[in-house]
């Protein structure tokens, strides 16, 4: 399986864009649609999606977060990096809507600026995990036999690694103190460690779906009709195995934001002055009795972001799934 095709495992909306344009025109022509079954499926999905308010709402919120990540200064004029102790732990006011943290930094500005690192790390890690886990899961579930045995056992080995241990080793080896890595490189390393340490779950999930689906009548029928492996996998197996994966991955966005914070807290992840929601939440930990807002505000943003991803994933999945139509 090549990379571009596997990409559709996660970001379903984007790769289909070319067909989306063509789809509505085809939709009105049933003969056409019947001839090109996969395109018809996506066309149907798009038609379905367009009518869903949930899809538009979640898409709008995600766009808002994307803009926030790309151009944080549009949302705040505050300084997310520098503070002054004179403002330490001040309550929310008209100057700083969410108050100030222990270092006297504007919490609102930090939450806005934190969107970038949080969203980029979480999304790319989920993407990578789905790619790697999904790929291995399909091969192992579909091929079975020795391929399954070997790949499953390799997954078991990685599964056995404690997260903290794996992350400390990977990150200190490449990102030890004193190394002068750029922020982008550190992000890359953090993403890589998250992917390496989390793919086995996705692999197991994908494999179980494939195992359950590959004996289905339509797969057997497709095989009997002489369809090639690639065709069976992409046109039949994948769309039908995607559901649990998509659900899992959207929630995983939330866990990864938290995992990134754990790494920063151990001194091996992102470093100040880079801000992320996870870092903010763990920094607020000691002051939860005096200033619960330090934990609450970033957590609220995190929940909103994850919620919109879950909703979007849900809408797309329902649209894609012929059984639910």
């Amino acid at each position, binding site marked *: 399986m090549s990379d571009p095709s596997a990409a559709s495992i996660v970001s379903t909306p984007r790769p289909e864009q070319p067909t989306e344009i063509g789809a509505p025109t085809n939709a009105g022509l049933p003969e056409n649609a019947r001839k090109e079954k996969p395109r018809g499926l996506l066309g149907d999905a798009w038609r379905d999606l367009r009518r869903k308010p949930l899809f538009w709402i979640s898409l709008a919120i995600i766009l808002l977060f994307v803009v926030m990540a790309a151009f944080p200064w549009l949302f705040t004029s505050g300084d997310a990096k520098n503070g002054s102790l004179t403002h330490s732990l001040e309550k929310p006011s008209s100057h700083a809507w969410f108050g100030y943290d222990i270092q006297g930094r504007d919490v609102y500005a930090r939450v806005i600026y934190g969107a970038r690192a949080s969203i980029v790390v979480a999304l790319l890690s989920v993407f990578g995990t789905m790619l790697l886990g999904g790929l291995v899961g399909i091969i192992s579930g579909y091929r079975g036999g020795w391929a399954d045995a070997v790949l499953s056992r390799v997954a*078991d080995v990685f599964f056995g690694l404690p997260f903290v241990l794996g992350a400390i080793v990977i990150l200190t080896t490449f990102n030890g103190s004193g190394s002068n890595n750029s922020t982008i490189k550190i992000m890359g390393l953090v993403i890589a460690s998250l992917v390496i340490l989390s793919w086995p779950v996705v692999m197991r999930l994908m494999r179980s779906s494939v195992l359950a689906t590959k004996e289905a009548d339509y797969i057997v029928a497709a095989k009997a009709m002489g369809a090639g492996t690639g065709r069976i996998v992409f046109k039949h197996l994948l769309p039908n195995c995607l559901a649990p994966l998509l659900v899992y991955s959207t929630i995983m966005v939330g866990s990864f934001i938290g995992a990134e914070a754990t790494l920063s807290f151990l001194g091996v992840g992102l470093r100040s002055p880079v801000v992320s929601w996870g870092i903010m939440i763990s920094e607020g930990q000691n002051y939860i009795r005096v200033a619960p807002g330090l934990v609450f505000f970033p957590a609220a943003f995190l929940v909103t972001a994850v919620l919109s991803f879950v909703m979007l994933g849900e809408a797309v999945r329902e649209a894609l799934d012929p059984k639910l139509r």
Partner: protein
Amino acid sequence: MGRYLVRRLLQLVPVFLGTTFLIYWLVWSVPGDPFAGKCGERTCPPSYVAAMTAKFQLDENVFVQYATYMKNLLQGDFGTTYSGRSINDIIATAYPNTLKLAVVALAIEAVIGLTAGVLTGLRRNGFLDNLVLVSTLFMIALPVFVVAFVLQWTLGLQLKIVSATVSSEMPFSELIMPGFVLGSASMAYIARVARTSIAENRRADYVRTAIAKGLPMRRVVGVHLLRNSLIPVVTLLGTDLGALMGGAIVTESIFTINGIGREVYRSIVTKESATVVSIVVVLVLVYLLMNLLVDLLYAALDPRIRYE
């Protein structure tokens, strides 16, 4: 089936060796001199460092160290920590506690997650559905310490419903709160995956047939629907037991449970390969056996899946 089982059990051997070596090597490559920080702002006496180095063969290369470790392991000796404690003892005392906590967490997670999943899967997009989604997501977004802190202070100290920390005898009643905290992070996954699976299978032919046959709804849901929707849920639960055991570091420390979490973390930062590997080895065995169990359950749950 029998042959499959034998084959899977045989496969455990290379996985076991691979994992233990990988972990041994990883811990070995954690940077830092284990004895550099032992004597405060002073460097330790070289004689002390030399004695410790010789005792734990730290001047040998990683292969020799691993081989020695495995040789002792095969004789049932896990070795000792740098502080001279027998790792066999640590495993014998800490593992049952961690396992107890993880099982309680898994049970809570399964019960709450599955109930929520089934209810919301049958009636999607209702009020309950949204409530479950938002509340379980909040559990994921809030780090464990916040959930633990809030419960500890409200239920434990203010309302005095439960004991705020766990006593060393670990009665079941005191484990419910920590179990909930530990399981809370995975609840959203279980609820969501169960919901999706139920919703999908709800439209399946066999469900329609069952309803058409006039079977009572309870039976349709309880036997036909649930059984066929459990595969992804079981996969998650199976992989989660190991994760719960290995990931209880924070929960264990907040509720003063004498589990493996603290030993794993402590021995990682002090570079005690033998301790890390010994503790993780047992975890790996749990993972492997759970995965095997899950694979066997697939066949039991879904007649379409067969192992030959």
